[in-house]
């Protein structure tokens, strides 16, 4: 995993060949507790940076997932809705949510790198 970028809403994105894979971070899945449900966007959906794109639910909380960048959803993790526990066990790997073709690679500059995200999380209560 080279050069993961992070958002303040605890999403991660890994870009390769203009397509970014998106999921939620280990910190996020720990805050949520056991994930019971995920709602993925439809393939072809146009996403806008910072706007809602998916939903993740645990027993005690429900959270929107916001698109880290603008673009078009080209693939979703079809198996995830049947095995939501994967978000907890492998959030950076098999727990990915969707892949998005970036409309503007420049938007990545607004996101945090690993070190910045780590200190961001430490700063939260």
């Amino acid at each position: 995993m080279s050069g993961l970028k992070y958002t303040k809403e605890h999403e991660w994105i890994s870009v390769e060949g203009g397509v970014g894979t998106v999921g939620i971070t280990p910190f996020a899945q720990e805050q949520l507790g056991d994930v019971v449900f995920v709602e993925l966007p439809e393939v072809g959906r146009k996403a806008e940076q910072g706007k809602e794109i998916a939903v993740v639910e645990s027993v005690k909380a429900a959270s929107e997932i916001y698109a880290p960048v603008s673009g078009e959803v080209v693939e979703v993790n079809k198996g995830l809705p049947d095995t939501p526990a994967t978000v907890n066990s492998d959030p950076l790997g098999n727990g990915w949510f969707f892949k998005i073709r970036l409309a503007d690679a420049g938007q990545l500059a607004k996101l945090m790198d690993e070190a910045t995200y780590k200190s961001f999380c430490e700063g939260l209560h």
Partner: protein
Amino acid sequence: MVDQPPPQTFTGNRGLVIEEPLIFEQDMAGRTGVDLPEPAKGKDRLGGLRRKTAIGLPGLAEPQVVRHYTRLSQKNYAIDMGIYPLGSCTMKHNPRLNEKMARLPGLGDLHPLQPISTVQGALELIDRLAHWLKTLTGMPAVAMSPGAGAHGELCGVMAIRAALDHRGEKRHRILVPESAHGTNPATAAACGFEVEPIPADHRGRVDFAAMQAKLGPDVAGIMITNPNTCGLFENDFARIAEAVHKAGGFVYGDGANFNAIVGRVRPGDLGVDCMHINLHKTFSTPHGGGGPGSGPVVLSAALAPFAPIPYVVHGAEGFRLVEHDDGGASFGRLKGFHGQMGMFIRALAYMLSHGADGLRQASGDAVLNANYLMASLADEITPAFDGPCMHEALFDDRFLKDTGVTTLDFAKAMIDEGFHPMTMYFPLVVHGALLMEPTETESKDSLDQFIGALRDLARRAKSGEAAAFHEAPRLAPRRRLDETTAARRPVLRWHPNNAQGRAAE
């Protein structure tokens, strides 16, 4: 002393706690608990829509049915059994006189659409209750029809929106304190508003400066609970109301905590434009395992014209029910028929029993009991804010730091001691919140026992007994239940093709 596991039994029963299967697992075809005459034969006029298949309802006789529900009831905790210290729920004693009154012939058997001339006493009862509610709150009008607290919130916020629409003003934001109950922002959103959260200050009250900074011509008003969900009186309430009014907005009061001040303070004097009252909290109508409630809403003169239909009016010829708006400004109907009459009767019986003097004594005792809890626990369990509190005492989980015991574990251990836990993790503004409301109907003996048990639990948590807390409860009819699997693979009904009730996977 070694903890022996309890003995196994053939039946799975444990003394008086009986394992009871589902009614569907006790079915015998043709059996029934009701004797009905044989219907005469004849042509039907069902338009060819007679049912073609069996329904699948189980058949049990009356003795089995009585036993079934009796056994189920024995697995429930209840106010009749012990202290139920849920914050902001006001779990006070439910007087049985109220049940008798609600069932009187001439009240319980009234059809809502009987001719008005045949229900004058019913309308008078609603009017009398309305009078008590208006007098206690210092407000000129009241909408009686909302069916629950959250429904009353909807009524109040809809009235505000209707008033703004009438003025021709488009204000699309509502201010809601972060400590607010979840129904507040949900209600605001249900009326088409955007929610603007307001933080609490270090004293647990609404941050006045932060609130004022958010006021503007696009703010419809504020939804504010007083006393608030931290159990504290909002000292600045009148100032807040004044500021909101000056900015052209309205003040919605969430009356969930009215029990702290009933008979001592009138919300109308503090500047509310509307306030819902939970009859099932302050006025003792029973919680019934989750309802029914009743949420009448007192209204200011500014909002009264927009009140929902129907409402009772008193004229020279007696009482009338206004059921249609006829060119008026009412925002519409909120519920079928006229409101929760069964709860009106119970609440009026409660008010008549207490009287003005008794209600004042009740709120004072409620506040006394909560402060007694706070003072008796403060050295073992960390209070969230400096006292005094109102009718409920708020603690946080600082006392559990580094013990490996969470607020949840602590609550589950209370169950083994014979208590229903207090409210946990609410309000959100405090970490690991424990919110306790004893109410005025707890005796000092009951409180002393409760205090003793909590102090003991706190000491045990701090002396490294975390493992025991994680195992709790051990003595309840069920241990901790797997809520994750329940949500991941929901089984929401019994299925005939699987004895365990789970559809084949």
